[in-house]
């Protein structure tokens, strides 16, 4: 299944937050949407998922206009993990993950066998087994992030979109979440992720889209997109690079203005 955003424009007040941006993801792809703070990444993501209205442009889901799907049909096809990691009311972990099944039934009546299986699999995939009865609100940041990821996985949607899923996680859990997301893509899902960590982006992603001032300014393989000149222009940083076990890596090293 393919999700395609065509010339999306989002305006807030007088400011164009996203301007004529196009982005598409397809089956089995692990795509990173990167760019400095305020570039419009989260807004583009929200417009693509339908949680924020757009001022112009079109979103096509599986070749059909987004609006031709009911909210529930759309929710079964696109799982969205917002940046805000919020769980109210001390709801236990199992119930939080079960909320991912909301689009699959009216919500009245108990969970079906398929629901239970999806929840168990999602809990196992993010490695939070044993926490099922704990309130999600009191978990550590790393545990909570993985529980909410499990909630998104439990939707079993062909498209998974996550806004900064590794923000505020320690290195171990960052790597863990990136591996989970990559495995989802390898299993055939289309996975689109906003992230700031260029090292992880260059290492894990198949394709990167670089945003600056509301526009997609570059798109392609990590090696193509993260050239020295673009890092300087868009991020205003210089990076150091290396090769580890055949894979190229880079890490931002100094502010470009310092050197100039």
């Amino acid at each position, binding site marked *: 299944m393919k999700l395609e955003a065509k010339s999306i424009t989002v305006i807030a007040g007088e400011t164009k937050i996203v301007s004529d941006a196009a982005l598409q993801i397809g089956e089995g792809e692990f795509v990173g949407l990167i760019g400095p703070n305020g570039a419009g990444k989260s807004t583009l993501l929200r417009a693509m998922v339908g949680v924020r209205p757009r001022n112009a442009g079109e979103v096509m889901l599986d070749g059909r206009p987004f609006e031709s799907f009911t909210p529930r049909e759309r929710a079964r096809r696109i799982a969205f993990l917002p940046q805000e990691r919020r*769980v*109210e*009311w001390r*709801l236990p972990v199992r119930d939080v993950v079960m*909320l991912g099944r909301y689009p699959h039934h*009216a*919500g*009245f009546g108990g969970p079906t066998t398929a629901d239970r299986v999806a929840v168990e699999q999602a809990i196992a995939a993010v490695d939070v087994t044993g926490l099922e009865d704990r309130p999600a609100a009191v978990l550590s940041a790393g545990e909570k992030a993985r529980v909410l990821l499990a*909630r998104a996985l439990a939707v079993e949607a062909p498209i998974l979109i996550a806004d900064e899923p590794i923000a505020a996680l320690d290195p171990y859990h960052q790597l863990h979440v990136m591996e989970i997301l990559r495995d989802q893509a390898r299993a055939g899902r289309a996975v689109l992720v906003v992230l700031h960590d260029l090292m992880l982006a260059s290492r894990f992603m198949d394709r990167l889209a670089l945003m600056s001032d509301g526009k997609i300014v570059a798109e392609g393989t990590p090696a193509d997109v993260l050239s020295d000149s673009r890092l300087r222009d868009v991020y205003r940083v210089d990076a150091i690079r290396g090769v580890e076990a055949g894979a190229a890596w880079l890490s931002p090293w100094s502010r470009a203005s310092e050197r100039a």
Partner: protein
Amino acid sequence: MKQGIVYPVLIFLLLAGVAIAATLSMLIGPSGIGFSQLLGVIGRGDDGIAWTIISEIRLPRTILAVMVGATLGLSGATLQGFLRNPLADPGLVGVSSMAALGAVLALYTGISAVFPLALPLMAIGGGLACVVLLQGLAGRGGMLTLILAGVAISSLAGALTSLALNLSPNPYAALEIVFWLLGSVTDRSMDHVLLAAPFMLAGWLVLAWTAPALNALTLGEEAAVSLGVDLRRTRALVVTGTALSVGAAVAVSGAIGFVGLVTPHLLRPLVGHSPARLLPASALGGALLLTAADVLVRVITPGSELRLGVATALIGAPFFIWLVIRARTELES
């Protein structure tokens, strides 16, 4: 942290509690008609004085206590779930004050003296006017806009109620208004029941419809929308359901506070903190609390009866303080 009690058992216990409280409510009163006479009256259906007291005084009072309590518990739980604000109650969105204003206007203008059912009718009208105002003011905005609009409407209705008191033609009219505002289910007739019940039942159905969306909203608005929740529709259901049921409840009982605020808090841990499962439990819990409180005021102050709204506030406020202290130690430990 395992759930302490199985959900169907909890619901059964609450139902049993409501049944016991309602039975007590049918048995206790200044006339001293007890259990054997009650059975006799039900069995024979005679038309003596006992029959009159039971069917025309205690029965409407009991039905209203149960229904008003259920309305307050259900709407409190719905509003807390929808706004994800533990302080939300039916008063917060302005419905109670608008319904009270409608009733006060009926008393102030004297229409209610000529046509008694004008009072509940105008109160329901006030509740419905509140929906129109809320949708107009906050129909497009978020949760915060709804709360602010509710507070603004409450303040305006409160000010107009004060104005009516201020300008009331004689002290007796002012006293009548004040006593009505205190809240009570005494001396209501079956006419009141028949008038308010359809609105309350309709409101319950509308509120119950929001249950699944309330669960999804646990994750925040964005996640809920991405799961297929129609936020605008859900808000319209919450506001309409609250106005119908609470408007009708206030119309027949006056302003009874704290039941809608406290009941959801009491029961939330017992339903595993699920906003959807809380709704039926909180409705039954509200019915139980209000009916029990109504029995209590008859027992502790026979004769010069303590007003039900005063009693719920006297019990509810200290209880709420205890909840705050408990939540504080829970949060800070």
